[in-house]
């Protein structure tokens, strides 16, 4: 295996809290990202994803542990590491006082690139981000998805070896998300290493070759999306609803049915019951045969959401 471009070992970040113990936002995280890989941090709000990204982006000093980005230690080689990164932060920080294209021009200069080269690259990137016709527009007049694409274009101005994306599509409508995913796919195809955080399981499934599931600053599991689903869930999930009044009562029967309950495992949520199984249809038939008639039923493939639920007992988006 080629040398990893990012390697963390027991990475910790804690923040001081007045009159109290330090708050540990990242609590001993270890993972490695190979060149060209698309690697994800999947976890709910407050899991410590952004904090981890900032440490890797060499703008936040780690409290302890080892961190190695492109073989360099961020404590010593901050500007050098950042010269090789493209960063899409969770909150956009485009300059609203400048026009769309100008944002790329000033940013390119921050890497010491000659003006002519930055100008050429800016035009290419506006094309890539499908913003060529907005070059002279005010940033504030762009839609959320366009702003995000502009931020990605800005992050690419120095031809980075690694692109860090912190929740790239949070807050965007489905169509805008798909346009963005398409752009990120292209980068992936071109061999750019992507490190991204998300709390959307579909985004992780779409974009990540490999990911870690993070909760409360710790890694709960690591693997490819398919891997994780195989390891922590079943092939299919049957979702049944019996109405809020019936749910709890029926849940007992489903969980204890035939001794071990339906399927491989049953999860009871406030509004519905999940039955994990190789075949959801079979379980539904057995259920009906046993005289249980859900108001609605749905059979779907298992997802990372189920993995997260299994690992933490909670949903990704609360």
């Amino acid at each position: 295996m080629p040398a990893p471009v990012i390697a963390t070992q027991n990475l910790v970040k804690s923040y001081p809290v007045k009159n109290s113990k330090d708050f540990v936002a990242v609590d001993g995280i270890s993972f490695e990202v190979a060149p060209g890989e698309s690697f994800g941090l999947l976890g709910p709000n407050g899991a410590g994803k952004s904090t981890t990204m900032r440490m890797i982006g060499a703008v936040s000093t780690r409290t302890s542990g080892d961190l190695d980005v492109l073989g360099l230690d961020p404590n010593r080689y901050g500007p050098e590491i950042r010269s090789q990164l493209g960063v899409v932060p969770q909150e956009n920080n485009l300059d609203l006082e400048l026009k769309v294209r100008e944002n790329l021009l000033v940013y390119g200069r921050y890497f010491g690139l000659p003006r002519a080269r930055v100008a050429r690259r800016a035009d290419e990137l506006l094309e890539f981000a499908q913003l060529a016709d907005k070059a002279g527009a005010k940033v504030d007049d762009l839609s959320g998805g366009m702003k995000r694409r502009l931020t990605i274009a800005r992050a690419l101005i120095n031809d980075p070896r690694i692109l860090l994306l912190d929740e790239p599509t949070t807050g965007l409508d489905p169509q805008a998300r798909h346009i963005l995913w398409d752009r990120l796919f292209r980068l992936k195809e071109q061999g750019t290493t992507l490190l991204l955080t998300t709390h959307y399981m579909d985004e992780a499934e779409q974009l990540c070759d490999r990911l870690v599931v993070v909760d409360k600053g710790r890694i709960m599991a690591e693997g490819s999306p398919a891997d994780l689903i195989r390891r922590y869930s079943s092939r299919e999930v049957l979702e049944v609803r019996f109405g809020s009044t019936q749910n709890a009562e029926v849940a007992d029967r489903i969980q204890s049915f035939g001794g071990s309950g339906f399927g491989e495992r049953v999860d009871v949520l406030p509004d519905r019951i999940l039955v994990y199984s190789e075949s959801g249809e079979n379980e539904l038939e057995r259920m009906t045969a046993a005289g249980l008639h859900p108001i609605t039923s749905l059979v779907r493939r298992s997802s990372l959401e189920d993995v997260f639920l299994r690992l933490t007992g909670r949903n990704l988006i609360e």
Partner: protein
Amino acid sequence: MSGPTNDISDDMRSQTLAAAVAAAARTRRYGSWYVAEHRFRVMRSYAQTVLFTAVGSPLVYLYAMGVGLASLVDNNLGDDAVTGVSYLAFLAPALLASSAIAVASEEFTYPIMLGFKWNPTFFGMNASSIQPGQIINGIIISVAVRMLVTCTIFYVFMLVFGAVPGRLGFVAVPVALVTGLAFGALVMAYTATLKDDTGQLAMVQRFVILPMTLFSGTFFPLDVLPPYLQWIGWISPLWHGTELSRVFAYGLSEPIWLSLVHVLYLAALLAIGWVWARRLATRRLNT
């Protein structure tokens, strides 16, 4: 080091290091100028306002105060009643220094709040090869340029109004520049401490800049004030800058050690504000 595998990875490591060092070298050296370049682009969007103020304020102030008020003063007290020169000659260097303070109070307050908080572009810069200290340097450089333009235009109007008897009068321009920056760097550092603006910046305008302008020997010599108010002048960069400007503009007589104190005091404030602002920026951007 042992074994061939290690050697290979060490070799790759040193190659990456060499490439990264080369890529960041220019930014390490010129980063502050790149930030200044960015700020100039932003200023271009309000260049008209900048020029309008730079031309309008000397016209208005020199005319209203220097000519209008001056004729009143001179008619009543005589042509050389205020420190030995006409009121216009006395007032003009102070107005010049005040115009530098005005630029400082504009550029080192809301734009700083903007960059750290409202439109956090400083965080964007900091994610590139730029370092926090360079952001502060770049802002100071860009404001210095705007201030220099403003003060030069002001000085040209002083000449037009015949307000500069001394031959070394032009030195008042760099003096005003240093005065504005010395005050501005402190204001910038203070603004960088604010997590949010809940009226503090307006308070600075009202309770620092306004009294400073009134009690810094601007419109009347400091010794006219009762002794218990004179300390305002002594701690005020504007008073030190104004007095020093007067030495050059018309040869205000003061002991040489006092002129030296003016220079040292302004330089010290500038250094303190600058270093403090750089520290705060580093702390705030490294989260």
